[in-house]
């Protein structure tokens, strides 16, 4: 166990963790950021997706020590002064969730996608999102939500994360 400094949602936090402890467990169990979910621990479902320097990253496969010095964004870090990001708002507006357990990972994966391609092609969208599972089967609505957020961002400009 060693002390490390992590930059999470704009705050530098000191945590004690084993070097190889997954970032997922550090976020959830040591920092109380439970919006990031465990789904498989093997990088196959995307429920644990966070942004590391803007890139959608599986926190279950990322040792916490490897994230030192990087900007980590979790679902809790998106809302600013009570305002949802366009992606969060679009998920609400489209009703793009059922149980909602995949939603954090979906929103972060979609946010990274739109940061790179503000108006993604169908192929870019499917390629970016295919690693995220929704067992409730809300994919068509999630696609609609990403398209809605894309439209909003094209109008407003991409300054959202």
């Amino acid at each position, binding site marked *: 166990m060693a002390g490390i400094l992590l930059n999470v949602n704009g705050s530098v936090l000191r945590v004690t963790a*084993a070097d190889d402890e997954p970032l997922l467990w550090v976020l959830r169990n040591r920092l109380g950021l439970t919006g990031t979910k465990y*789904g498989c*621990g093997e990088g196959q479902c995307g429920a644990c997706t966070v942004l590391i320097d803007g890139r959608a990253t599986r926190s279950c496969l990322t040792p916490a020590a490897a994230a030192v010095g990087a900007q980590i964004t979790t679902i809790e870090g998106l809302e600013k002064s009570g305002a949802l990001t366009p992606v969060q708002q679009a998920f609400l507006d489209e*009703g793009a*969730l059922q149980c909602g357990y995949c939603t954090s990972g979906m929103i972060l994966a979609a946010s990274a996608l739109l940061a790179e391609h503000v108006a993604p092609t169908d192929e870019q969208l*499917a390629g970016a999102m295919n690693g995220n*599972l929704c067992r*409730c*089967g809300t994919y068509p609505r999630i696609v609609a939500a990403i398209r809605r957020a894309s439209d909003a961002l094209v109008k407003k400009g991409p300054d959202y994360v």
Partner: protein
Amino acid sequence: MSDAALLAEASLHDIRDRIRAFELDRREFLRLCSGGLLVCLSGTGVAQESGRARQGHALPQDVSAWLHIDAAGKVTVFTGKVEVGQNIRTSLAQSVAEELRVPFDAISMIMGDTDLTPWDMGTFGSRSTPTMGPQLRTMAVAAREMLVEAAANQWSADPATLTAADGRVTNPKTGASLAYGDLTHGEKLTRTVSGDPPLTPASAWKIAGTAVPKAQGREFVTGKHQYPSDITRPGMLFGKVLRRTGFNATLVSVDASAAEKMPGVQVVRDGDFIGVVADNVWSAEQALAKIQAKWNVPAQISNAELFAALRKQGGSEPASSGGFEQALAGADVKLDQEYTVAYIAHAPLEPRAAVAEWEDGKLTVWTGTQRPFGVKDDLARAFRLSDDHVRVIMPDMGSGYGGKHTGECAVEAARLAKGAGKPVKLIWTREEEFTWAYFRPAGVMAMRGGAKRDGTLVAWQHHNINSGPSGLETPYAVPNPSVRYIEVNDPPLAQGSYRGLASTANHFARECAMDELAHGLNMDPLEFRTKNLTDPRLSAVFTAAAEKFGWGREKSTAQRGFGIAGGTEKGGYVAACAEVEMDAAKKVRIRRVVQAWESGAIVNPDGLRNQIMGAMVQAIGGALFEQVQFSGGQVQNAHFADYRLPRFRDTPQIEVVLIDRRDLPSAGAGETGIVALAPAVGNAIFAATGVRLRGMPMAAGTFSS
């Protein structure tokens, strides 16, 4: 759901023997409510699943729900039903708001907390909308009537001249108006209601019947919602459980000394139960890996031998009635085929999770389950606790699909917490969820049938070994159908409830067999069905799906096939048209599915669309590629990398056509949307290729996806 079907599903979990009267001390509850109005619904009078004697066990006849209005006018509804993603928290609140004449936002729902809510059998079988819905509405009507009476007393007015709207009672003659909270202020008004008061007809609904967004939706898109696996308690430790290396394995020896030496780690042992706890999950995982155990795993069959084993256990095919054989002999086109369905997993994205806490001999467990009172019984039995020493709390969880009826994880967490002397959180790994949960039953279906040259169905047999009786009855008009469900005493895997349960397999077999007959007759599959349908509600969804899809507009080709299927289950009617694309490598892709739906009066069209669309997407997995592979007592594909679930790229264009029958009672909608896709896809694959696939999953052999 018929009583027989409900009982069959209940028996999967041995509920019959566990039912116990609801024992909450209502006076204690009233003490906690600081004044206001409390309405309890008695079990009599309203159509509901409780209150009927079954097999010598009387279900509780006490109270099935209650509702409280505080001095500020805040309405709290208490029900044992739970929210698992099906949006029942929203739609039940809509029904209460409608009858109580308050805005939707005035309603809070307390659900699935065994200390606060009345006993409930569980959230399964699509029962919440058709039973709990009317119960809550009945209570809300009674509450509204009490408030109107209270106002009439204050104003010395005739209650019949007063109106209730928007959380207020108003006297139109004088203009006097009082908010509900003011009417209850300072007093404890209670009433127990029974009977069937006049409910607001669906044709007059203003809040029910509308697309109210998911309750607390913002909590979910901001990560604030606390699922069972997110609960934390002061001083809480994290647990892991040592698993057997195969089903039915017995422990030979164990050496936990290396784990015990780890700092901050405690090994908890109770007979064959061995677990570890630590102050962080990473250490608990490391400690578990250090435990050396030897297990004796008995020889067990593999999935390659599954259907032969089921056939053997199901016994030789019973002689069908003379009437059936005679009718079949007179048919021009005959069918005699076997269909199969593999074991599949629920794979809820949130695995089983529980946080257990012991305090002064009382056990509290937060856990994800569709049966909080069933899990409470499991805990009471496991630790020999009296009913008032166990509390189960069910935070809205990461789904279930029928897969979280049982309390194993809760019992394990409680055992660890007891051993550790501290609260313990246990989250099953994905591999544990895939292995130690239970599965949708596999089955073998023997289908025989015959039709006259003019398309009249004259003979029908559908025998199902093991997968279950739901959806077994044919909706098509045919004399003396031979329909049987054959139970298997010793199935190879633990099996239990599932969304739609056997109805998916039985619809697959029936609707594909009907398609076989239609092709044998050289008749359009829709025309063949329509000719033999007498149920106008089923005919209506077939027509609606076909119209929207453009059925018959184009002919199937080798590259593109069209298929149709439908049926009725749990009070809902569904029909689907599918278009599949086949490539030279025999790869199947579902391009488009139109599904029409009718389930009486629609309570929330947006939530309903979401459920139906989701059920269709989920159905793709079982139809094309999901199957549990097992051998040697182990699941061989217990990971998402090996057990393929439907993903974004698998999703076709989906269109849902809703038929809102406001003249009919609302049926539950969580399950039936899953049954029509597989046969529609199978029939479309046949239309394109001429190959009839009679086993689910269909794209696991000759074809891929």
